């Protein structure tokens, strides 16, 4: 090749690259997925939460496939943590460092969330909490990279307390799993129900994985409590009577009123919609005698449908998509955070507002009863009371309510 030919070829090649390159690169960039990491408990005693989160992720990715976010596809990458905090950190680190995710979500347990969240400022990735209830995540452990879209344990306790403040019941027992979420929630409930001039006659924290709750039931009964505030997750919530064969929870020991399981079935019926695990069990005979509450629930219908969990992940994903659109980037995490702070989202339950001071989504609180509906194979929530966001959200970076 002569020098002139070489220069001509190089000039033509350069021109083509100059004009077509950016187009090609833009197209290639547009095909680069926005990666969301989900280090979730897909096995173990809390697997139902992780599995629901994964289903929500899969559904969201499918729904948004056509338009994407900023024209880019969304890809969820799942890792099984088994519900173990150390594994959760390891899997999250793999997602961040190997897979290059900028957003983490779907972490099931508060203990895992506290461990993973603590690393996020170092990794510079956003942690979107969709399930974790530990109050400390938005108080003493708060940092700029953490956002909580779901209700916290104290928020759930607040809604239940507001509801029970109006009830004729006066004496309550708090039973929560022995870790951050259980202790936070029972502590918050105790404070609030005491402020409502009611009495907490006992508290207990069974270890996670308790195989038999009979001793705890006996203590509850002995305390003469009229109601139990119950904060159990996963397998513990499944096997806690009312799940098992009837263990009389009736504080009055009414041996003659027929179905000894009535109180417990009734108790299963009362839940706070902020989480599918905060139950206010009424042990009062008055409630137990309501015929509809004496109907035994089938074993497979004991939990609220999984859409409670899926809904939380879905909401977080949609809100994130909205925020990324607003920020105009998914790669600059700082810009995404700025866009998310003080932003709003219109959810099925009502308006949500992500306050800047602690990244807790202000949202309405509900008290619901799980009821049977012939149209559905599972229990469905029936709303008993609704509370506005400002009533059920604590003051910034505290667990106190105004």
């Amino acid at each position, binding site marked *: 090749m002569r020098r002139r030919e070489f220069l001509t070829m190089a000039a033509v090649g350069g021109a083509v690259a100059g004009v077509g390159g950016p187009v090609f690169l833009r197209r290639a960039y547009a095909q680069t997925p926005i990666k969301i990491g989900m280090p979730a408990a*897909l*096995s*173990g*005693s809390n*697997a*139902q939460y992780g*599995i629901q989160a994964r289903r929500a992720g899969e559904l969201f990715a499918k729904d948004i496939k056509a338009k994407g976010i900023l024209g880019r596809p969304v890809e969820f990458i799942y890792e099984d943590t088994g519900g173990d905090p150390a594994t959760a950190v390891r899997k999250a680190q793999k997602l961040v460092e190997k897979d290059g995710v900028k957003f983490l979500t779907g972490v099931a347990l508060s203990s895992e969330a506290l461990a993973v969240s603590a690393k996020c400022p170092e990794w510079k990735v956003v942690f979107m909490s969709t399930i974790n209830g530990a109050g400390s995540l938005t108080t003493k452990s708060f940092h700029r990279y953490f956002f909580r879209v779901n209700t916290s344990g104290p928020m759930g306790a607040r809604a239940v307390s507001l509801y029970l403040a109006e009830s004729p019941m006066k004496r309550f027992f708090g039973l929560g799993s022995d870790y951050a979420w259980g202790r936070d929630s029972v502590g918050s409930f105790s404070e609030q129900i005491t402020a409502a001039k009611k009495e907490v006659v006992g508290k*207990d*924290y*069974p*270890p996670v*994985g*308790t*195989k*038999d709750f*009979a*001793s*705890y039931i*006996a*203590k509850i009964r*002995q305390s003469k409590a009229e109601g139990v505030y119950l904060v159990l997750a996963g*397998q513990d919530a*499944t*096997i806690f009577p009312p*799940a*098992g*064969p*009837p*263990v*009389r929870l009736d504080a009055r*020991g009414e*041996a003659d009123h027929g*179905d*000894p*399981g009535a109180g417990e079935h009734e108790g299963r019926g009362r839940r706070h919609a902020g989480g599918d695990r905060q139950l206010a069990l009424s042990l009062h005979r008055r409630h137990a005698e309501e015929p509809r509450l004496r109907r035994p629930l089938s*074993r*497979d219908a*004991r939990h609220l449908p999984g859409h409670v969990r899926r809904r939380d992940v879905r909401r977080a994903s949609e809100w994130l998509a909205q925020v990324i659109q607003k920020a105009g980037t998914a790669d600059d995490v700082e810009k995404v955070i700025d866009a998310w702070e003080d932003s709003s989202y219109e959810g099925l339950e009502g308006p949500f507002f992500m306050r800047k001071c602690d990244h807790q989504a202000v949202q309405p609180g509900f008290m619901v009863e799980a009821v049977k509906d012939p149209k559905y194979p599972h229990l469905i929530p029936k709303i008993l009371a609704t509370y506005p966001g400002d009533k059920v959200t604590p003051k910034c970076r505290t667990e106190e309510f105004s």
Partner: protein
Amino acid sequence: MLFNLIEQLLNALVLAGLLFLVSAGLSLVFGILRVVNFAHGVFYMLGAYLGYTTVAVSGWFWPALLVVPPIVGLVGALLEASTLRFIYRRPPIYQLLLTFGFALILEESVRVLYGNTAKGIEPPQLLQGAVALGSIVYPRYRLFLVVLGLVVGGVVWLLLQKTRAGLVIRAVAQNSEMADCLGADVARVRTLVFGAACALAGLGGVAAAPMTTAYLGMGIGVIVDAFVVVVIGGLGSIGGSMVGSLIVGAAQTWGAFYLPETAMVIMYAVMGAILVFRPWGLFGEEE
């Protein structure tokens, strides 16, 4: 106060009954095969899941109680005959790794077949509800578990102490080479004992399922307690398993009731004390 004590005693007996079904098999297997069977807890879980299937198919609980233990026993016997039998003379780590690997395979198989969510079984109609025992109202099903534990314990003891088969099993446990010389079919005894131990665990799983549901990981939870029982009672001793189960059951239930903050510690503290002062267990024999 007295009623509390009685109720907690009943609760301890329930837990002890279930623990006995698992730990007796574990202890037997060690006594006769000299194998620490890490897969034993998974047979308990398998029993619970097969119980769920049987109830789902038949609509009855009782057939599950009768059908599942032999099936689980058969799986156990097959495992022994096809794998363990060939490594008895190797260092214990081989048997430990094999049974641990089998536990993982079985647990993952159950996950694939049944999924991750817990499966519940309704107790039979006859055992639903509660009965009044003086001032104590106690669930019928839990009372049934107490009776089941006692009956199975009695049957196993009678079998081992009062029958010719029991005599052969004890002979193999004491000196397998001598028993072999005297005409006992040691290989068959080992297979049968391993199968029977797994069947006991399977029975425990079926019996526990209405109370705890069948869930992944239930085998790991129970095997830890069963090891504590066997350490306390003494390896290879059925009587020791019974007493160990009672001690662990009582420590867990009374601990949770009277000293909730230290409930978990009590059981291990007892085990620690036994290991220090009587390492061969309460009913074991010093080697």
